[in-house]
Each structure stands twice: as structure tokens, then as C-alpha cells.
């Protein structure tokens, strides 16, 4: 159970950091924060890459992970890009 406890510790502490870091967000930033944090959740791409890149593996693993790479890439690329576009609009006027 050693690795589980370590992983779970990381999880719980990260949740607390999340709450602390973004407790006061001005409403202007609600949408960019959502699209930006959504891009972060595309981190699943790491898992997708590991499995899609496994040599000597059943075809099904490659297919599932390959589609996961597509999904996660859309999530990451689309999320950061659209956030950048929105933030550009907020900044232009200052």
C-alpha cells in the first residue's frame, strides 16, 4: 500500500493547493480560468502517449490510446489557444 498512500497524499495536498490558489477570482476571469484549467486537465495526454507508444502491444491498446491522444490533444491545444485569444481581448484596452 506504500505507493497508494504516497499517491493519495499528493492528491489531497494538490486539492488543497487548488482551493487556496484560486479562492478569490474576479468574475471577469471566470471564463478564461475555466478554459485554461480545462487545458490543464488535458494532462491525460501523458497517459495516452505512454500507452500509444508502447512497443510490442496488442493492436487494441494502440487504437484506444491513439484516439485518446487525439482527444487530449484537442483539449490541450484548443484550451490554451482559446484562453490566449480571450486574454488578448481583455488586455487590448489597457
Amino acid at each position, binding site marked *: 500500500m506504500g505507493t497508494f498512500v504516497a499517491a493519495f497524499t499528493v*492528491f489531497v495536498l494538490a486539492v488543497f493547493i487548488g482551493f487556496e490558489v484560486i479562492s478569490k477570482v474576479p468574475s471577469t476571469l471566470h471564463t478564461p480560468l475555466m478554459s485554461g484549467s*480545462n487545458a*490543464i486537465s488535458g494532462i*491525460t495526454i501523458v497517459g*495516452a502517449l505512454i500507452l500509444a507508444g508502447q*512497443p510490442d502491444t496488442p493492436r487494441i491498446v494502440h487504437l484506444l490510446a491513439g484516439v485518446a491522444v487525439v482527444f487530449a490533444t484537442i483539449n490541450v491545444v484548443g484550451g490554451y489557444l482559446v484562453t490566449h485569444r480571450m486574454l488578448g481581448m481583455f488586455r487590448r484596452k489597457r
Partner: protein
Amino acid sequence: MHTQDLRDLAYLLAAVLFIFDLKWMSHPRTAVRGNWAGVFGMAIAIVATLVGEPMTWQYILTGAVIGTVIGVVMATRVKMTAMPEMVGILNGFGGGASVLVAGAALVMAQRALAAGTPFGMQERVATAASAIIGAVTFFGSYVAFGKLAEFLAVKWDLKPWQSAIKYGFAAVTALGGLAYALVATFGGGGLPEGAAPLVWGTFLCFAAVGGLLLLRRSRFPGMDALKWVAAAASLALGAMLVVQPENGALFWLLAAVSSVLGVLLTISIGGADMPVTIALLNSYSGLAGAATGFVINNNVLIVAGSLVGASGIILTRIMCKAMNRSLTNVLFGTLGPTSDTPDADEVYRTVKATSPEEIAMTLDGAQRVIIVPGYGMAVAQAQHAVQALAALLEQHGSQVEFAIHPVAGRMPGHMNVLLAEANVAYEKLREMDDVNAEMEQVDVAIVLGANDVVNPVAITDPKSPIAGMPIIDVSRARNVIMIKRSLSPGFAGIPNPLFAAANCQMFFSDGKKAINEIIQAVKEAS
């Protein structure tokens, strides 16, 4: 140091950058830097994953190219008015990826299990959790997208592109289920004993999802009971998968039942509750990523996923508070008129309709003007016209500000994005509480396409369905101009006595047309 240690250090660096991303994203001045921190964090995590191990590249490269093209096209083409749909659908991709990664990891683990490597309890539970949360997020996000783009659960006729997505996606879902069942039954080594009901049950669930997506209304009898059944079935199947991880058919049945749950949970949610839904799905997409992190024992997934999960929950709470409703009430309840709701004809006896010229007279010499935008501004795409009116009034010596209700529109911060697109300065966007404190000094409040968020019964009538909901109390301003297409009620379905108040004038028109006419009248009057 071993390669894996170096890789883990790179992941740690990525996790730290994600924390800075969120921290900087919560302040207007540092937000751009925050987004870049996230980009670098992601790049570091990806490079660290790809370097130092023998890899099969064709699936990675194909997937990355397709995903990048789709992502770039979506992000550069989307209009600012369609941002709720965009955020809605992006949430879903993360969830979908989690289900697929957990499914692929399960196949690997089953192989290892057959070769004698044990399959740990943590990975088993996390695989089940990834399937449930990921599938709920994927289909819930699709439904949110479809409701925001107004092609799911609506009675009216659809445009061709709406029909194409609606019927195409429903068909792909149902046929995908069928293809899986056929391949599992007749392809390769055939089905293991006892798996047939699981495989065909999976098909039935995906067919049911397809059917639900064709509904032309948001609710049907027995829906709430069905939600509970689907939720209980997901948990039961999840527990079974933990006990028998070697049974791959169980995993896909679990994902299928959770898909039904995801559709049911979101399809009944009304438009004005969408900000809560989008924030909640945002949180789920993070939690799905964290669950997948437990599956493959990867800290950067766990950290990044739980950060997003936490931020989504915070936004969900802010949105629920702004509507004075509990999360359970949003997910399972309905909002609507009660038997105590006064009759609309009675309330609206003294409504005064007005003209652009009269409005120009009211605005003439006004020192303080506030504009309260609502979803109607987004629908009419009136944000540029509104900015033009504000600039014109400022030329005439008025101080013009915008009062933004936290749940105005269809996602958190929706109005802010639109006004930013129209070049309204950040400093002019005021939050509800600040404006309410100064409302007596406001000469003219212009309400554009908003209704429930300015309805004074939230304060005056404790029996009203919206009692206690914080509102922008424009009824205390000297003059109120309501721009609205008709006297039809807002989302809550109750009349708004403000429309008939002595200080209120109603201008019945489309938002953009109305503003342009007012601009014209103000120019002519001066």
C-alpha cells in the same frame, strides 16, 4: 540518476508550473503569463514522456496531428458569443481521453496479470473511477454543448449543421455500441463464458444514449428515478470491476451505463443553470484526469487533475451562491412558478412602453448610467452596439459603467468575455455588490436582455421561487430602461413587477436594434 528519476523531476516541474498557471490566472494583470506557464508545463510533461524510452511513433504522431488540427481550427474559428459551447465541448474531450486511457491500461494490466504480475487494488479502483467520471464528463459535456448550441432537447426545427451533429453523433454512439458487441461476439477468440449479457448490455446502453440524444424535450416521466438507477448501477458495476479486473466486458458496460448517467444528469438542466453545469463538468474533467493518474501511477496527472477539480468546484460554488440554490437543487430540482406566483396580467397593468426618443430624453443630462447585460445581449450579439452607446454617452458627459451579475449568460464570466471583445475597459465592469451599494446615485439603469437577475421579488417576496437570490437591484435607480423583446418571463417563469414600476420604461425590441435606435435618437437630440 535513472531516466525515470529525471522524468519524475520534469513532471514535478510541470506540476509546479500548473500551480503558477492557476495562481496567475486569478489576477487580470498576470493572467497571460499564467496561461504561458501552463503551456510550458504541458510541453515539459509531454517531452519528458516521449524522451528516453523505445517508442512506437505512428499512433502518437497521427493522433497528435489530427488533434492539433482540430484544436487549432476550433480555437481560432469560434466566436466569442459561442464561448460557452466551446468550453462545454472541451471539457468533454478530457473526460473521453480518461476513459480510453483507462481502457487501454486495463488491457495491458490483464496481459501482465496473465503473465503473473499482480494487479494492485489502487489501479483497479482507479480504473473503475476513470470509466465512471470520464464517461459522465464526456457525454455530459456533449449534452451541455448541444443544449447551448440549441439542438438538443428542443422542439423547434433545426438548421442543417445542427441536424448533422445531432443525428450523426447519436448514430455514431449507437452504432459504435453495436460494432463493439459484434466484434466482441464474433471476432477473434469469441466471447468468454458469461460475457454475452455484458456485451449486449453495453450495446443496449449506447443505443439508449443515442435515443436520449434525439429527445425533443428536457424531461420525461420517471427521469429522476432513472438517474438514481443509472448512478447505482454504475457504482455496482464499478465494484464488480474491482473484484474481477480480468473481465474486460465489465469495463465497457460500466462506461456505457455511466454514459447514460452523464446524459440524464445534464439533459434536464435549464439554460440559466448552465453556468453551474459548465463549472461542474470542468471539475469532473479534472477529477477524471486525477483518476487516470492513479491508474498509471503518475503524479503529474494526479496533481494537475486535482488542481482542476478544485478550481471547478470553487466556480461551481460561486455560481450556486449567485443563484441562492444548492447543487442538488440544480441537478435534481426544477425552478418554476408556484401557486403563490401572482398573475402576470395583474402585475403588468401599469407597464409603460417607450420609444428611442423618450429614452434619449431620459439619458440627456444623466450623470451616472449603468448598463446591466444578460443573456439577451449575447443572443442579439449586441455587445459592440452597447460599447458604442456607452462611448457616445460618455462624450455627452455621463459616467457609464456595466453591472455584471455572476450568473448572467450561460457560463461563468460570459458577459465579461463579450464586453471585452467589444473593447470595454476592464475597470468599467463592476460587480453586483459594489453597484448595489451605490444604486441610489444612478440616474439611469439600462437593462439589456436580463430579467430574473434584476427581479426585486427576490428581495420583497419570501415565497417566490427566486427568494433570496442576490440581484442587481436596479429598482432603486432613478430611472430604469428595460430592453426586452416582450413581457415573457425569464428562466424562473415568474412575472417581474419591476416592469410595471413607476420609474421603469419598457422598450420592446431586439437588443441590437434597440441599442442602435437609441444611439440614433441620442445623436439627433443633441
